[in-house]
């Protein structure tokens, strides 16, 4: 049995025309001598009647002050994919290709009990295999599984969190030893940059698992890293293709270590806020940094680009989290220093509320017992992170110079940088995002319109 898993995202199944395009992809898989297994996301994006966000809004609208139970929340979130599964199976059947709609649980996907962000524990794909053996096409609901029926949760439906349908496709591919997993979307493959922001982008013919994971980490809306990781672990070739595109798409296979140095693409993370803490005493830098980490972890806010100098700490947070973070930091008191009197740092966010003033008045009464030191926290709330994704970044002299020169020549201010073995990221003002992506794309990917071939060609 040669199995090929085909996953269709929400925008690939949201109109009859696009569903017909999806059907043609499934039919082609059969024509190629494969047994197709289809995985679908919920139909459409936020606002569409059966999109996950729409269903969730319906539940949360019951009483905005009451938080729905995680189990029930997952149950309603899983409905969008189930509806999509039935519609797609019937579309296939109506076109003359008998199909069977399966929930994640019916496809044998068993997860842990973490509702909203479950991890797949095992897959028993007997029903999928027997469906194929009957000559029918299994259409599996993505983004979901069930808890172990033998436990106290009695086979409750769980959802897999962000990128869940990609994860379903990849995991099913691994369980079925598929010859390929194909992720269909509304772009022709993995692009060298966001085509809405940068003219002249090209589709990458092949990227490694690590490159795709780093691209996603640095803001690209591509395959989810969880799906890439499963495919890498089980050696399943992944493809990202456009549902209606004629190009071959992007193959995701191999590891970055096998590749020579190359710039893979330019990504960006928009809507970022930049915080800088200015420290009066260097010796307490670590203490303040640690308190910052704790605060952000407590409200489950991830951060980017941690850096600084002996006298300052800089980091970026998603702008949607800024109000929460600023509210927690303004007026925060951090005790430090082993001397007597003790040192109390009092944080003042430059656009914070009234907490700093209240705390300052209260701490004035501690005069003589402790030294109260104000720490200004500057906020730049309209930033973006622009990243150059490249293999062997740390083994290639001059990458930092090339990136910085390019941005400087383009008149773009760089607030801060950070790097990893596969990326070099620059924090820029949000208004410069498109310009920065274009300049870096021109420098590293396409020097001119008919410039050198894209990486991997």
């Amino acid at each position: 049995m040669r199995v090929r898993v085909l996953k269709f995202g929400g925008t690939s199944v949201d109109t009859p025309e696009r569903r017909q395009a999806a059907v043609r992809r499934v039919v082609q898989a059969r024509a190629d001598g494969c047994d197709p297994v289809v995985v679908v996301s919920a139909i459409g994006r936020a606002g569409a009647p059966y999109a996950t966000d729409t269903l969730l809004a319906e539940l949360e609208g019951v009483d905005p002050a009451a938080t729905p139970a995680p189990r029930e929340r997952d149950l309603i979130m899983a409905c969008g994919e189930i509806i999509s599964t039935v519609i797609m199976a019937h579309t296939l059947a109506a076109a003359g290709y008998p199909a069977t709609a399966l929930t994640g649980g019916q496809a044998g996907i068993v997860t842990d009990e973490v509702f909203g962000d479950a991890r797949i524990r095992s897959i028993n794909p007997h029903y999928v295999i027997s469906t194929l053996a009957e000559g029918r096409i299994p259409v599996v609901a993505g983004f979901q599984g069930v808890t172990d029926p033998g436990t106290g949760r009695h086979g409750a439906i769980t959802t897999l969190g962000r990128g869940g349908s990609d994860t379903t496709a990849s995991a099913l591919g691994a369980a079925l030893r598929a010859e390929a997993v194909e992720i269909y979307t509304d772009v022709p493959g993995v692009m060298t940059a966001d085509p809405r922001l940068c003219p002249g982008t090209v589709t990458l013919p092949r990227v490694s698992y690590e490159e795709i994971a780093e691209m996603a980490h640095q803001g690209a809306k591509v395959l989810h890293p969880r799906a890439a990781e499963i495919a890498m672990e089980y050696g399943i070739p992944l493809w990202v293709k456009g549902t209606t595109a004629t190009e071959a798409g992007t193959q995701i296979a191999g590891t970055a270590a096998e590749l020579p140095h190359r710039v893979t693409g330019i990504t960006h993370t928009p809507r970022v806020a930049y915080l800088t803490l200015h420290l009066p005493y260097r010796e307490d830098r670590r203490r303040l940094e640690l308190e910052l980490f704790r605060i952000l972890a407590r409200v489950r806010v991830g951060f980017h680009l941690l850096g600084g100098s002996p006298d300052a700490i800089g980091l970026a947070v998603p702008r949607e989290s800024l109000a929460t973070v600023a509210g927690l930091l303004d007026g925060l008191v951090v005790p430090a220093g082993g001397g007597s009197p003790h040192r109390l740092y009092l944080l003042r966010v430059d656009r914070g509320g009234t907490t700093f003033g209240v705390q300052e008045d209260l701490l004035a009464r501690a005069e003589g017992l402790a030294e109260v030191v104000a720490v200004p926290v500057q906020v730049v709330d309209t930033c973006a992170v622009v990243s150059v994704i490249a293999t062997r970044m740390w083994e290639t002299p001059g990458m930092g110079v090339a990136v910085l020169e390019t941005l400087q020549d383009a008149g773009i201010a760089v607030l801060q940088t950070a790097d990893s073995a596969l990326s070099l990221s620059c924090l820029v003002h949000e208004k410069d995002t498109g310009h920065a992506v274009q300049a870096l794309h021109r420098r590293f990917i396409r020097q001119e319109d008919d410039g050198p071939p894209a990486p991997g060609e």
Partner: protein
Amino acid sequence: MSQAVRSIRARRLGFERERGAVAVEAEEGLCFVRVPLETAEGHEAAALGVLRPLAERGLCIRFLRIFPGCLSFLAAGEDLPAARAALVDAGVPVEASVGCAVVTVFAPNMRSIPGLMARMGEALYARAIDVYQTADSHSSVSCVVAAEQLADAIDAVRGEFGLTEEGP
């Protein structure tokens, strides 16, 4: 550039990896370099004045951080004399810490796991281990520490994340 001295991995428990840290890796033989940046001409221009001489000599750097008033990076210990000479020739003052190491925690899809850096920082802080610099990727968080504190750092991080199995 440097040598991996130890790799410690967690047992794979299910179809997907557990949330959080799955391995710790350490490297030593590194040096940490910090350069004050003159901000009068703009820190980007000042940074280029530091990076160009290094690139011209073909020196590889990592953990590059450009920040108003300060640029820092990590280099192989054996490259320090060449890096120092390049920067001194360019009139750039250098502050270098030799005998540095990197301890890295691997956690797939770490962006979705807030608190990883906090736990790592907390574990190192509790042992009074100074962290010179940090970095992250899609699957890892790294801290630069003094090589003489590396064994203690590995022990602290292993304990924090429950990583006990020696890797290959």
